[in-house]
Structures are given as structure tokens and as C-alpha cells.
């Protein structure tokens, strides 16, 4: 291939990557190989060579089209975005080996240990910066794994069903003498957890803590955890929260959310979630957590309808409303009232202790207390 062509195409791939596309070197190489088999001078061929190799998701396609149009017409697309109200600060994590600490860090640890109990029940909306960082550190340590379900897979077990394959293999080893029966039983796997975090204006004091909770859940539950943010738009954050480091994950998530502190159209968001992901299987048999105050600006009837749909698909629906903890709280807002009949657990999630409780609910302890 012509050197100019390669330069042009690599430049294009760089544009796609700068716009947030999945154009890693391996994919760029694939694009160049694809062009070897096609006509470099035909814009259609160039378009498809790039699209088939540089995209990995339907969400990538619109961005790809924008980049393609901009790059090949000579403009450069500019990525611009508002700064979100998320605490993105490096939080000192305790080194497992205890290196590089000394006196100072031991002092800090002692101070933290006594402070934790006080912090546990404090509303996260009323914390100072240092306390906030401390709570964030503790949330990152939460174990928010999901309750387990029986898997189709088998594992060797001392009792249970007969395992023909292993029994016969054993028999073969003994020269055809069946002397030992082997058994197997179903393995268990964690259920999928889906978290939908409301990032609208009324939820902004809690969005950071709840997203950090989602990150902790994603770390405990691995690939079976899906996270979405809702507000005026539904955003899938699963990929962003896959970073191991909580601060890197939060930075990526906050950059991905386009509608920080806007209004709430939870009914519509939920409908979009169910249409695009839930009904296809993402919500099926899952533990779904909705973190929202239920201040619905849209149609509460729609929210109720969608909650009913969600409840039919999911194994369990948990609703975390930070305002529930306020003295005298009654779920009187239209949205909350419409949603509550379709919720299995109704909890608060406003403090560290409340998030611990939420983690227990996700793990299946203390089920079904919404209507108690």
C-alpha cells in the first residue's frame, strides 16, 4: 500500500481513538489489512474497512460516522464536555506490604479506625472533603457480590448424580473393573447484578457514593455486573467501571455521563433500558438495583408500567432512595408511589452503613422487606 494512504488511514484511526473509539493498534493493523483486499480509492470501501475493524459496539457506529465525515472532509471533530460533580481525587490506599509508611501512616491508620464508626452513619451529603475521601475508600472495600443461583454446569462432588465420564475414565484406569462410582452436582454462580444510578440534580449529593458502590459491586461480581446511569439519558457504564482503581473508574464514568445533574425521566430511561438490554436478557433472573429518589419529572404512570415489566423479568428489584432515611419520610412522590408496588426491597443507601445494608440485600440476605 502507498505510504500516503497508510499515513492517512493511521491519522483517521487516531481521530477515531481521540473521539473515544476502540481504535487500538491491533485494530488499526486489521483495517490496513482489510484495505489491502479492497479498493483504497473507493470511499465506500474505505468507510467499511474502517467500520468493520475499528468499531466494537453499536454505540461506536454514530461516532465512527461523525469521525469519518469530519476527517475526510478536512475538519477535526472536537471533543468537549462539562466537568461533572464527581470527586475525582487520589485516595491513599493502604499498601498490602506496609511499605513506605512508617510512623506517619500508622498514626493515620489509628485515626481512621476510631473515625470509621462515627462516619458509618453520617449522611454522605453532609460530609467534608476529607471525610468524603475516607468514606470513598471504605466503599471501595465493600464486598457487594450477588446471591447465588444454580448453574447448568457440573462440578465433581462427593455425592449427587452419577458422573458417567469420570466413572468410566476411572474404570478404564482399573482395566475395566467398575469399582468406584464418581458423582457430580450443579455448580452455583452469582446472579447478574444490574445497577441503575440516578445522576439527576436532586441525586447529585449521593451520585458519587452510589457510583463508587457500583464500582465495588463490579469488582466483587466481575463480568456479571452491569451499571447504567440515568437522568435525562441512559448511559451504560459497565466498561468504564471495569478499571481496578476506583478513582480511574470514577473519572472514566464521569466523562462518559453526558447528563449530570439534569432532570429525571426515570420512566423513559427504564423503558429504554428494558427495550435495549433488559428484555434481551440482561435483566432476566438478575438482581436489579435502582438508586433514585423517585422525583419523576415525566409520567409516573409510565414509570409504574416499566417497573412492573422490570419486576417480571428480574429475580429481585431493590430500590435505594437516599431520602428514605430522613425523619418523617413518606414515599409520597408520584414516581415513588408508582414504583413501590413492584419493588422487593426498599432501602436508603445514604450513608456507609446504609450502603453496607444495600450490599447485604444484593447478596440476598434479608429479602423482601419492602412491604413489611
Amino acid at each position, binding site marked *: 500500500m502507498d505510504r500516503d494512504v497508510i499515513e492517512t488511514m493511521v491519522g483517521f484511526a487516531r481521530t477515531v481513538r481521540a473521539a473515544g473509539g*476502540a481504535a*487500538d493498534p*491491533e*485494530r488499526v493493523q*486489521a483495517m490496513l*489489512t*482489510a484495505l489491502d*483486499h*479492497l479498493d483504497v480509492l473507493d470511499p*465506500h*470501501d474505505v468507510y*467499511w*474497512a474502517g*467500520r*468493520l*475493524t475499528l*468499531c*466494537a*459496539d*453499536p454505540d461506536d*457506529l454514530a461516532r465512527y460516522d461523525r469521525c469519518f465525515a469530519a476527517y475526510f472532509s478536512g475538519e477535526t471533530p472536537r471533543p468537549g464536555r462539562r466537568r461533572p460533580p464527581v470527586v475525582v481525587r487520589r485516595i491513599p490506599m493502604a499498601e498490602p506490604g506496609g511499605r513506605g509508611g512508617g510512623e506517619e501512616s500508622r498514626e493515620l491508620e489509628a485515626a481512621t479506625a476510631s473515625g470509621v464508626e462515627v462516619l458509618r452513619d453520617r449522611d454522605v451529603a453532609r460530609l467534608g472533603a476529607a471525610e468524603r475521601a475516607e468514606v470513598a475508600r471504605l466503599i471501595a472495600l465493600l464486598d457487594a457480590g450477588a446471591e447465588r443461583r444454580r*448453574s*447448568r*454446569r457440573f462440578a465433581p462432588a462427593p455425592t449427587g448424580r452419577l458422573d*458417567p*465420564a469420570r466413572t*468410566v*475414565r476411572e*474404570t*478404564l484406569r482399573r*482395566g*475395566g473393573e467398575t469399582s468406584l462410582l464418581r458423582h457430580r452436582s450443579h455448580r452455583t*454462580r452469582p446472579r*447478574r447484578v444490574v445497577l441503575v444510578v440516578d445522576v439527576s440534580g436532586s441525586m447529585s449529593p449521593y451520585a458519587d457514593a452510589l457510583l463508587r458502590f457500583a464500582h465495588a459491586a463490579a469488582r466483587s461480581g*466481575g*463480568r456479571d455486573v*452491569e451499571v447504567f446511569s440515568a437522568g435525562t439519558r441512559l448511559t451504560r457504564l*459497565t*466498561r468504564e467501571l471495569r478499571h481496578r482503581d476506583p478513582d480511574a473508574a470514577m473519572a472514566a464514568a464521569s466523562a462518559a455521563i453526558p447528563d449530570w445533574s439534569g432532570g429525571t425521566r426515570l420512566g423513559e430511561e427504564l423503558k429504554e433500558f428494558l*427495550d435495549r*438490554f433488559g*428484555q*434481551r*436478557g*440482561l435483566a*432476566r433472573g438478575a438482581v436489579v438495583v435502582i438508586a433514585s429518589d423517585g422525583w419523576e419529572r415525566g409520567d409516573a404512570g409510565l414509570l409504574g408500567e416499566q417497573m412492573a415489566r422490570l419486576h417480571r423479568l428480574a429475580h429481585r428489584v431493590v430500590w435505594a432512595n437516599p431520602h428514605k432515611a430522613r425523619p418523617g419520610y413518606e414515599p409520597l412522590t408520584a414516581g415513588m408511589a408508582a414504583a413501590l408496588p413492584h419493588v422487593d426491597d426498599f432501602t436508603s443507601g445514604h450513608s456507609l452503613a446504609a450502603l453496607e445494608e444495600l450490599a447485604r440485600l444484593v447478596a440476598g440476605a434479608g429479602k423482601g422487606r419492602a412491604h413489611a
Partner: protein
Amino acid sequence: MTMDQVGSPAELAGLLDRHGYLCDEGLATACFLALRMGRPLFLEGEAGVGKTELAKTLGRALGAPLIRLQCYEGLDASQALYDWDFPRQLLHLRAAEAAGVSDVSRLEGELYDRRFLLARPLLQALETSPSVLLVDELDRADDEFEAFLLEVLSDFTITVPELGTIRAERPPVVVVTSNRTREVHDALKRRCLYHWLEHPSYDREVAIIRRRLPDAAERLAGQVARAAQRMRETDLLKPPGVAESLDWTEALVALGVRDLDPGTAAVTLGAVLKYREDQQRVLGGDGAAGLAALLGGG
């Protein structure tokens, strides 16, 4: 025609067309590159847009058998790759005993012979050349399986400890489909060409119906396609795919319908809409007003 003789995406589109599959430029390019680059084609799109059908037609068009691996939760290597035929091994052992064979090590070697190996889809695809391998609904398998599949699709070799390495003479054409119930690992996608399959345009859908169901009158095909297009714009739980348009047309043809009117549409609606809520929404308040609107106009 064999896969090496396909010279361009357009030529491949023509070949698929002759075997009853109408594809657009993007899909033709995707298939062409999958053949040329020896990379798996990762297909996503709404249910019923023709992902599985494409793999079947590719097989027919290239004169290669289609080997299908349907994924499900709990799928493991012995169901996807190979398994030993234990009953036959035991029989062989008994027969050898009865014949008085005393050479133990030779007997052991015989037990792990290729003829006692049951080839499951992945091994079959590697051993059959040429072949089209359809890995259907990969998102339903669990992620351990995905990692394992990545290994097979990278090297196109399978190692059986007792036998050694089995290498594909020529890699199969691989089509992987997913319904996006779960994020498939990026490492696997990177190995593949990615294509998002859209619903066809009105004209293409009419052409697809006419091609697949030659008994359907042109007018009927047009009416069904238009109604399906409008249903996709309506807010439905499950908008119809091409598969549903074809089902509907087939039902209408079976009833001897040549012209679709609201009454006929109402009684056959179950062929195209599979949710009660969707049927009610399309029928409208008084039962048929919505349908008339759906079918009416040019």
C-alpha cells in the same frame, strides 16, 4: 464457486443473492473480508434481522457444510470441542480381554485412538475443510467459555492431550452472533470483524419476501413490508424483524390472501407480533383503527 474465487464484495453479494440472501454493501464487504482475511465475523443486531440465516446461506453459497454451535450457559469444552466415547472404549477393552490380549501398553494406546474421539462442533469445523462455523448467541455462554473460544479462534488448532495437536487444513469461515445480553470480551471482538446488522429498507424487504416466498403476490409483499416498517417506528416491546415479516407473509399465503385488509391482518397478527401488549397497541382503541392506519396510504 469456492471461497478463493470470490473477487469482490459485489461478486459475493451476487453469489449470496443467487442462494436467496439479499445483503447490502456493508454486509457484503464484511463477509468478503471475513473470507479474505480469515477472520471471524462478529454479527450483532436485533433479533430476526437475519444473522443466523446469513451463516446458513454462506455455507450453501460456498458449497461448505454449516457447523453450528449453539451457546448456552454452562456450555463447556467437552460439549463444544470433543469428548471420548467411553462406552466404545469399554467395549474395546472387554473385546481385547476376551481375545486374550496381554500387551497392556499397546491396549492403552489403542483406547485413545482417533476413532474413539467424538468430535463436537469446534473440532468438526477444524476437521472439515472447507466449512462454515456458526457460533450462535455467544453472549449466552459464560465468560470462561469465551476465553476458551478466543484461543481456538486465534490458532485454529486443538490439542487433545492423548492424541496431539489437530490443526485445521484451512480455517473455517466463522460467524459469531450475539444478542448483547452481556458485554462480550473486547479481546475476542478484536479478533473479529464487527458488523451491526440493521433492519432492511422497504425496497430490500419487499425483495427479500419475494425471493424467499415466490408464491406471495407483489402487492401482498409490499403491504407486509410497509406494515412491518411502520411497526418498527411504533413503540413496541418487540418490533418485527425480517423473520417475522416472512412468517406473516407465509401465514397469509397459506390462507390464500392476495390483498391484506385490516380484518385479515387482525386475525393473523400473532404471526408478526408476539406480545399481547404489542398487538393491543397496534390494533388501537376500538380494535381495528390502528391496523387500518398501519396498512393504509401509499
